[in-house]
């Protein structure tokens, strides 16, 4: 019971601290990091306190400390799964899908007919439950990472395509006229003016696609996979009621997802430093 009381006390103090800091120092830099960090810690403490205080069985919800211990004990397995699902499945599919969408967007941009025909179809397909194609691709490309990469390619293709096509339109007529008065060729206009102008849109699509890529790779493994991979491990560990391992995999997924997103956001910051949304 003392755990529960401690957790509730901790929560009350943290709540009071956050409220005070938010009221007084909300404009300062350190508060912007401290407040959410304290909130996150409070959630973990509450979680630990509730699990221990009410003696919640490990099969329902393991405590954060149990998860941390399991994580530390099974880094080998987690690394194998990480390599299989994230590096082989998600990342290779992500690169191929985004590259294909990029090339397609430039082609679509050149042909008004293709744009009028393809974009409504693309918008329609982008809203569909694309993970549903996973069983088909597993049947075609086998159980290993190739089928997961294929699912990821299809999943990331449309969001990137839609954003990139919008981005290629992002220059105003004045800028285009200027390039024309310089008698710049199509390729020069594309490389020097339109691609840079499209970058903020492209990164928007790329960021959305990071999450989709991970989801695609993990969900595709529910339809069949070799005896490794995060989706495989999650479904088998759930079957064995080894929830600490499941939560360890979820932690890996969360870290990988955040890291992946952060990497793209960093690239965006470096490449689109001139854009208004990056200033200030």
């Amino acid at each position, binding site marked *: 019971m003392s755990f529960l009381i401690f957790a509730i006390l901790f929560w009350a103090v943290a709540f009071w601290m956050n409220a005070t800091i938010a009221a007084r120092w909300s404009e300062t830099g350190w508060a912007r990091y401290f407040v959410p960090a304290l909130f996150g810690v409070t959630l973990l403490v509450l979680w630990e306190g509730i699990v221990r205080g009410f003696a919640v069985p490990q099969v329902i919800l393991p405590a954060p400390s149990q998860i941390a211990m399991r994580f530390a004990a099974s880094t080998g397995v987690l690394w194998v799964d990480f390599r299989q699902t994230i590096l082989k499945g998600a990342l290779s599919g992500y690169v191929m899908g985004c590259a294909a969408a990029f090339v397609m967007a430039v082609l679509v941009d050149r042909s008004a007919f293709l744009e009028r025909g393809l974009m409504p179809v693309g918008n329609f397909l982008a809203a569909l439950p694309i993970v549903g194609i996973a069983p088909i691709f597993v049947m075609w490309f086998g159980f290993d990472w190739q089928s997961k990469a294929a699912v990821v390619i299809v999943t990331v293709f449309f969001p990137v395509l839609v954003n990139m096509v919008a981005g290629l339109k992002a220059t105003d007529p004045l800028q285009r006229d200027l390039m024309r008065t310089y008698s710049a060729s199509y390729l020069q206009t594309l490389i020097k003016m339109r691609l840079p102008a499209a970058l903020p849109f492209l990164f928007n699509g790329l960021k959305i696609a990071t999450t989709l890529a991970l989801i695609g790779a993990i969900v595709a493994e*529910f339809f069949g996979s070799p005896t490794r991979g995060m989706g495989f491990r999650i479904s088998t560990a759930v079957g064995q009621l080894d929830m600490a391992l499941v939560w360890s995999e979820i932690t890996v997924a969360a870290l990988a997802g955040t890291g992946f997103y952060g990497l793209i956001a960093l690239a965006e910051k470096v490449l689109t430093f001139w854009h208004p949304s990056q200033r200030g």
Partner: protein
Amino acid sequence: MTRVGPVLVVVCAIIAVWYGATVWLNSAWVYDQAARSGQAVGFWDMVGQTMALDRPVLPAPHQVVMGLWDGVTGQKVTSKRSLVYHGWITLEATGLGFIIGTVAGLLLAVALVHNKALDMSFMPWAIASQTIPVLAIAPMVIVVLASLGVKGLLPKALIAAYLSFFPVLVGMVKGLRAPDAMQIDLLRTYGAPKAAIFWKLRLPSSMAYFFASLKVGVAAALVGTIVAELPAGAVAGLGARLLQGSYYGQTVQIWAALIAAACLAAVLVGLVGLIEAVVLKRMGLVR
């Protein structure tokens, strides 16, 4: 209307490529069968046979349409083989989850806009959680809730709710903050209380954001429901249909379930769009 022509051409091109791929992918099997039974097949014989295989690698479009038609009208809607039955199961969970997620997202967005401490604590985590593949949690939620005795509709709806919750939250926070400081200051000089500012300024100006996020949310809820139906041996619903089809190699069944899910998604998004048009018109927000 200038779009109808190009769209038709693209759709026709997709169908043509599909038929071509059907012949190409299925031909190996047909030739193999013929070689085993010691017969020679001509090219057109082979083409004909690839269109009518029992378990094709890629079913021809008309096979999928037939599967869909058979699934929808071939049996009573209460039959376990009816797509209407499975679609309804999925739709129920999607709808319930979508409503839970939307209400939760709305309430939290209102709280965040009015409470700075909550906003500073919660919002960074809400945004960070977008980068996590939440669907990975789906199988665990199902099993845990099942061990607590909660089965059937609710676990699936919760996963759908979780997925539709964040688009609504993020969109609504943005929408409720959309009125600029001048407008809020103006209402303050009128002596308007916070509630009046909310109902007369913040809420109306958030409507465009609200419906944009609802469209994302409803599609996400459907994906969540379908994925939630995969693990723990769900026996009904479009997701279960996909999984069974993949176990038994029933490709036509998979494709039919897939197209049914696609139609369901399109109908749901269209429905939200329809409600949006009516509401915006009633509120006088259509320009």
